[in-house]
């Protein structure tokens, strides 16, 4: 079976859907029309650019080009992961923790995927490494961002309760563990929902794409299982790293809460 190739006409159908959504937003006074149009244009431009860049990188088969592109993707992911928290650390630490946690979670599971199940030749070949990294990076970035947001908000809200434990002789880990666990759980919840509903409520995106591209549905489901396992593991690592790094940064070696290291957007 050949993949279904989308034409310019098909793209116009997609654009018409966005315009219809904006008109609806205007008629219902939702105030979303501008955001919807800007996001759609931004998405289209970004994806067109990515398509062109990937075409170029795949065509040249250069390790350095692959590394350069991955470095750019990791930097952007670190920036995005740290961009939407209401309560923030000072910028260097905030984006540093977001970047380190996102990169750690992604790199570990990408290497596991490339070196065990997928095993392309060579293992770092751009055609496999870049899409796999992109898929996992996006997911780990979301989990890291959620973990940071939940923990930073919780620490601000519960500062007195944390200090009550510290006063009674708890270590910083004992005082923060409950909130750290909450943050990691909140970060994993969307992925766990996605896994539980896969194939029953929703058809997973990766599997859908592969079936539309002509792959046998059973083989596509195997890919989906592998990739979802990599995603949930990467998310767990990224969210855990982010939470523990924040807890470590917001306390000192004497176990004191150091909330002066927080900045608040409001």
């Amino acid at each position, binding site marked *: 079976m050949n993949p279904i190739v989308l034409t310019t006409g098909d793209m116009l159908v997609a654009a018409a859907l966005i315009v219809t959504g904006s008109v609806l937003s205007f008629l219902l006074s939702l105030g979303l029309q501008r955001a919807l149009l800007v996001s759609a244009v931004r998405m289209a431009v970004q994806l067109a650019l990515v398509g062109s860049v990937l075409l170029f990188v795949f065509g040249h088969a250069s390790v350095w080009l692959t590394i350069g592109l991955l470095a750019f993707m990791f930097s952007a992911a670190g920036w995005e992961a740290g961009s939407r928290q209401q309560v923030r650390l000072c910028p260097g630490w905030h984006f540093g923790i977001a970047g380190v946690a996102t990169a750690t979670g992604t790199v570990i599971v990408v290497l596991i995927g490339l070196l065990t199940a997928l095993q392309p030749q060579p293992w770092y070949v751009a055609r496999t490494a870049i899409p796999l990294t992109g898929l996992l990076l996006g997911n780990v970035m979301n989990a890291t961002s959620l973990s940071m947001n939940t923990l930073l908000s919780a620490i601000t809200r*519960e500062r*007195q*309760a*944390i*200090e*009550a*434990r*510290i*006063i*009674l*002789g*708890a*270590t910083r880990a004992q005082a923060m563990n*409950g909130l750290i666990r909450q943050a990691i759980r909140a970060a994993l919840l969307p992925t766990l929902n996605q896994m539980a509903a896969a194939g029953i409520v929703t058809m997973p995106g990766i599997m859908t794409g592969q079936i539309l591209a002509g792959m046998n549905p059973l083989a596509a489901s195997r890919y989906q299982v592998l990739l979802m396992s990599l995603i949930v593991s990467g998310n767990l690592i990224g969210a855990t790293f982010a939470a523990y790094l924040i807890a470590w940064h917001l306390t*000192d070696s*004497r*176990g*004191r*809460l*150091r909330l002066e290291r927080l900045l608040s957007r409001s």
Partner: protein
Amino acid sequence: MIAATYAAGTLALEVQGLCCAHGGPFTFSVLTGQCVAITGPSGSGKTVLLRMIADLDPHEGEVRINGQPCLDMPAERWRRLVQYVPAEPAWWSDIVLDHMADTDEVHDLIGRLGLREDCLRTPLSRLSTGERQRLALIRALLLHPRVLLLDEPCSALDAATTDRVEAVLQAVRARGTAIVLVSHNMQQAARMAGKRFRIAQRHMEEIAP
């Protein structure tokens, strides 16, 4: 009952040049079983002083218990020995028994502090400020601290209950625990403390007996 006892007449707490950006330098000492009262206008730095002694905020200067400097001891051990009870104690759950075990010692203190027996099973959010203040005192006393740092411990209590709290604190002192009491109530400071200090404009001076 409070189990620990300490030798009388020895120095329990020494504070030497203790300061941070929000207050100090403060220098004073408290003997075993002695109560020292700190008074002064709101915002003068009384709470800042207690927090620095409990090693809850970064500071300069030195604090010692039984001659042992704070920084020579693991922070967790220090804070168990130097129990700070804030003016508005915090709780990490709404269930009292998540904060203390259901022991004879707790029931003894509940009775002596005039609390209802069922307060251990009542959600904290349904207890009055005064009841929560006394439960926070019990939570601190259960650790048998060497030094008690009390920030307005009776601010939400009537006269009769204040008498009960003071009686418990006198019993704690009799067993050797030193007390640093921050209070706006000058009568209470006079009743409880052998030595009184006043903090004003970051400066600490002893009030003549």
